[in-house]
């Protein structure tokens, strides 16, 4: 699975439609490089990147915290 496949797996969650973060069918077309202002999508991408680069969980958490503390 590529990082884009993993991201799409998350974006397919109903929550994204319920909360209007994405429109119907948008998740499938989503590209890793697609620009987004959505914090949830941003931190999911950070978590995926951390996981794929075998980063420790603590470092990923710190990165996400830093991002959300802005």
């Amino acid at each position: 699975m590529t990082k884009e496949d993993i991201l799409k797996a998350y974006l397919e969650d109903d929550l994204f439609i319920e909360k209007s973060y994405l429109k119907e069918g948008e998740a499938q077309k989503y590209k890793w490089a697609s620009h987004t202002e959505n914090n949830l999508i941003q931190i999911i991408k950070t978590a995926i990147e951390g996981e794929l680069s075998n980063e420790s969980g603590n470092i990923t958490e710190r990165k996400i915290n830093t991002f959300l503390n802005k």
Partner: protein
Amino acid sequence: MILQSIELNNFMCYAGPNRFDFTEGINVIIGDNGYGKSKLYDAFWWVMYNQCFDTSIKKFKYTNLLKRQIVSDKAIDETEEGMISASVVLTFHNTEKDSLYILERRYSVRKSGDKIIEDQDSEEIIWFKEMSYMNAKEVKEADQIERIKKSILPDNIKPYMWFQGEQVESIIDFNKSDTLTHAINVLSNITRFDNIITVAEGLKESSTKEFNKKQRDLSGDKGKSENLELDRQNILDRIKGLELQDIQIKDTLATAEEKSETLLNKLADAQKIREIEAKRKSIEQNLSEIQEEFDEEQQGLHKRMFTSKWVLKGTENLFDEYGKMYNQFEHKKLQHEAQIQARLDSENALVSEMQARLPIDVPEPIHVQHMLDIERCLVCDREALTGSEAWLKMKALIDRSQMKIKTLEDEEKSVHNFSGDLKKLYQNGLGLSHNVKSIDDDIASTFRRLRKLDKKRKALSDDLKKIESEINSLIVDAALNVSQAANILNEYSAQNELAKRSMNEVNSNANILSRRKEELSKIEAELSKLVIGEIPAYLKEKIKVIEEFYLVAHSTRKRVFNKLVLILEEEANKHYLEMTQGNMSSRGIIRLKELSNGKNYMPELVDENGNVLLQLNTGNIILIKLATIMAIISARQGSRDTDLYTLITDAPMSVFGEDYTIGFCKTVSKVYRQSIIMSKEFYKNLALREQLLTNGEIKLGKVYLITPSIPENARSNRNSLSTNIEKLN
């Protein structure tokens, strides 16, 4: 990666140099039991892992424990002095990089007279050769050797690519909680989703702490907030405890459900085995009684020769003839006695006459003897010369003293007289003659009874054989022995009881958990009310985003996992259907049923309406497991594992029999780019072998027939044993 060849030199039963070449497709090595198939499988394993499978303990053993068992007995026996080496060489062709990996393992012993000195361990030599270059390069670095081996067969794939038939049960053990998860891990990178959940959980915990601290900092009543926080922590601990308990109970419930499901499949068989076993015992008891009666009756036959006087059978005429002869004898005897009596009468008359002249012993015999000696009668004073009439008269006086009246009894004493015995015989015969007449009836009735008992005995014996065969086939099909079957019902009821109890506990726990959560909400609401001022917007947003991340991380992991289970299920069904084509009895659809703890899965066979098909036999279960193993591999087609690695398996078909063999081969040749299969199914069944060699749906590689140089029953040791290899295509 294609396995091009295996070369075996003095390895176990492969004495001398031996070679098998392989190509893409399904390569089959055919041989009966004990012909060297497992030893060939061992050879592959030995080169890679320095181990061979010990069937007696069902475990792999390292060379340092096997030592000279690695080396051919024939090679050792034929060498008088010096070193004997066993070696196996595997040649792999990396078709993508057009290079070869040559892996060799060697083990040596030294023979000195009768003494054999064993090396401690084997020696491994790995060569790498790029096809465009002439020379091969020896690989010496341990890391690189490890990398090469991993590229030939990665650890996570290994159990599903190289296995023996008898290992199939344990490779896919659905009773173990992690079997399917492990399979899914091989199939996918689900662990990445697990790791992201860990990150989400960590973030949720830290952000909640941050938020609570902020709330307390902004509290209008810090003392109350502190107390509420303590209460909150207390309830949180309890909730954690309850959640942990919930997991444990659900695990217990899942295990009980799994066991019940497994037992349910065997329940009907177990009941049947128990019923048949009871019937068998009763027949056995009857048979034993009848046999005893039969044996007694048969032993009694010898006694009856005398006790029932059977020995006299057919002697009726003999008695009559004897009677006649005895009558004649008696008649002659009477005549003879009359003659003797007449003679005696005349002799006795003479004696009486003599006794009438002078009394006996008068004169006394000494005086008479004196007169004889002097040849003169002193009574009348006359001369009596020896031999004269007077002298003879005197002598008669002496002889007369020895004469007496004879009777018939005296006469009879002087000859052999069997008269009494013959009479006794006649009288005995007379007594027995009445029995003799009924002997035939007695014999006939006894033999009638014996025949009846024998018939009954044979019928019971046949019944017993039939029932034993029925019970044996049930035991084989159900993989249960009699005592296991006897325990199944109790175990099933116990597991059901445990499942019910666990279910009640889950419900009760859920109620308590829900109350605690309500309490927690109230405390949090109170804490929130105490806040004066504004919680920073970034923190509110952070809490919201992290909560959403937490939810999405969990639900996505579950969705991805379920999707993988579905893929696995779909692939398994595809293979199961292919393998069972041509055998209607085992049709069904494999469904992987999620158990209560949400972690474990149980395979079920359902009909097209979703009804569970019960009473799966061992063959069905093994087919399902093999289908699942193939599914794990074929579902990875994106990663091209099926192209990269070779399936090597020993006797995978032995458990499910010949009906599925061709289906299995077709499926294997579709799923795997290359496979090497050791099989006995094609050994005796020549029609099946012909199908293998000619079936267009099977992508066939090389087919070999292996046979021992000396059959097992014709050898007392392995000192002359080698293996003949015949190419069949």
